[in-house]
């Protein structure tokens, strides 16, 4: 009798734990479901053709246009600027930490770099608007107060630790034997790093870049504070522009009635954002899997 009670209890606990694990699936279903449902309402009134080809995004004006391109271009420009900072800085830091730095340096620096990615994003936004932009305005006096350059630069600094940490892990996973073989042939550290370690860790390093892209695309507060909120179709980082995320914030600040087209438009923007980041996430996971099986 007691044994059966115990067994029922054990099964109950297991079921409870399983349900807890299943919440993550429920969250995904919730995210995809809400975005699709609300976007569907949006696309019932706005044709997909206009959404993808119109060059203006003015859902809140009386002369409403619903072309997503200006938001996508703003997102891409800030992302490219961010990558131009994060990829070189992150990669060279990773090479240094994995191939050159003595152990104590590596052990101290890694947590400090992690701190950089733990800084609240709103603080980074403050930094971009009130520190980096004035600095840049000394170089370009006619740089507008809101611009994509300073937002992108700061996002780059923010995602740099992701690049350096994931690439360093990939480089550390390269077996010591391969380095020793290279040194035995008379190669210098640089030759070993460039010809042996980096090529062997390439898929891991690529995964780091791809994950960084996905973070830069989804970053919200820095662009909402420092890049301005006007959707403009431009590739010039010196101009102000809105990103997908900044638009969502902008609309949320106002008081849009539930169910209106403006309300639904933030879900359409969110859907585009989700598709973009998901593509990069999946690519990143595939690359990471490849480097894990390499050795």
């Amino acid at each position, binding site marked *: 009798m007691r044994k059966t009670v115990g067994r029922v209890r054990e099964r109950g606990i297991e079921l409870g734990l399983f349900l807890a694990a299943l919440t993550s699936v429920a969250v995904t279903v919730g995210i995809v479901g809400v*975005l699709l449902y609300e976007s569907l309402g949006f696309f019932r009134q706005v044709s997909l053709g206009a959404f993808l080809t119109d060059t203006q995004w003015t859902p809140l004006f009386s002369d409403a246009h619903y072309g997503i391109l200006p938001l996508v271009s703003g997102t891409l420009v800030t992302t490219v600027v961010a990558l131009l900072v994060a990829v070189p800085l992150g990669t060279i830091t990773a090479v240094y930490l994995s191939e050159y730095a003595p152990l104590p340096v590596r052990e101290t620096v890694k947590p400090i770099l992690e701190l950089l990615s733990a800084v*609240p994003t709103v603080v980074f*936004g403050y930094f971009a608007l009130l520190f980096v932009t004035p600095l840049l305005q000394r170089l370009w006096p006619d740089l507008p107060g809101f611009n994509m350059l300073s937002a992108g630069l700061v996002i780059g600094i923010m995602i740099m630790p992701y690049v350096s940490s994931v690439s360093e892990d990939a480089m550390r996973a390269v077996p010591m034997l391969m380095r020793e073989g290279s040194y035995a042939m008379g190669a210098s550290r*640089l030759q070993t790093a460039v010809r042996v370690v980096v090529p062997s860790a390439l898929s891991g390093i690529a995964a780091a870049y791809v994950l960084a892209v996905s973070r830069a695309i989804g970053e919200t507060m820095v662009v909402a504070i420092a890049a301005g909120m006007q959707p403009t179709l431009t590739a010039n980082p010196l101009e102000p522009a809105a990103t997908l*995320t900044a638009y969502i914030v902008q609309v949320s600040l106002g008081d849009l009635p539930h169910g209106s087209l403006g309300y639904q438009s933030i879900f359409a923007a969110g859907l585009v954002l*989700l598709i973009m980041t998901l593509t990069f996430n999946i690519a990143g996971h595939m690359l990471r899997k490849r480097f894990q099986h390499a050795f």
Partner: protein
Amino acid sequence: MPSRFPSDRPYGRALRKRLDILVAGAGLLAMLASIATLLILLAGLAMDGGPHLSWKFFTSYPSRFPDAAGILPAWVGTMLVMVVTAVTAVPLGIAAAVYLEEYAPRHWVTDLIEINMANLAGVPSIIYGLMALGLLVYQLHLGQSILTAGLTLALLILPIVVMATREALRTVPQSIREAAGALGATKWQTVWDHVLPAATGGILTGLILALSRAIGESAPLMTIGALSFIAFLPHEPWQTDFPFVSFEWLLDPFTVMPIQMFNWVSRPQEAFHRIAAAAGLLLMVMTLAMNGLAIYIRARYRKHIQW
């Protein structure tokens, strides 16, 4: 065959050595540049915001006048939202991790959960806000409340909690489980009495880092409609009559520190930028303190437990 890499050409030892030093220097410089940014950021916040930190700042409501503006509703809101987040995310995350690490059979449902968890970790936080707006605010009618905010952040940090807990469970040696099993403990008794206590250090580290991330989040809370100007406090969680605790505050509107800071940064007047810096300084101190605590716990448990 001529080599494509300059460093492969038969330079003398001296030159290769010099190149090596050059690259090491560049690496060191890149690393120092990012650390310097962190220091500049902190110094800037301290210089601009430091003088504004006073007892009055903590105990005043926001105001149209920068000198009178305070952060009271924001830090009260942050604390209450964090309570909801922790109460939801901690048990849920640990339970999910225990299932995946200790119970789950290897089959497609487990694979699905794992792939899904990894993808969720990469979903931008503002998407969680949209989900919460559509689902919690308008379908479940929880309103633009502390409860909605806490649940949103809990779901947001769930993947981090699960991954950190799994990592910690994995470091517990198999022999502990086998020893408990050999003495007749059931699966759950093994987990609850032996595996979880042994993994406490790692789990705690992960939880603190996840909560420190949640404290700094603002984007998902803005989408659900957190107010940026609020001149009252939520209902008190305790009352004089039976049953002495009240949960009315759960459904109250709120603001949190990062949103208050965003509101101040977005104003044109410079005086508001200085109190924004004060709020930022507070946020940074909290983040740094939590990260420091996490590093300390990690180091302490690593030293104390020797398998």
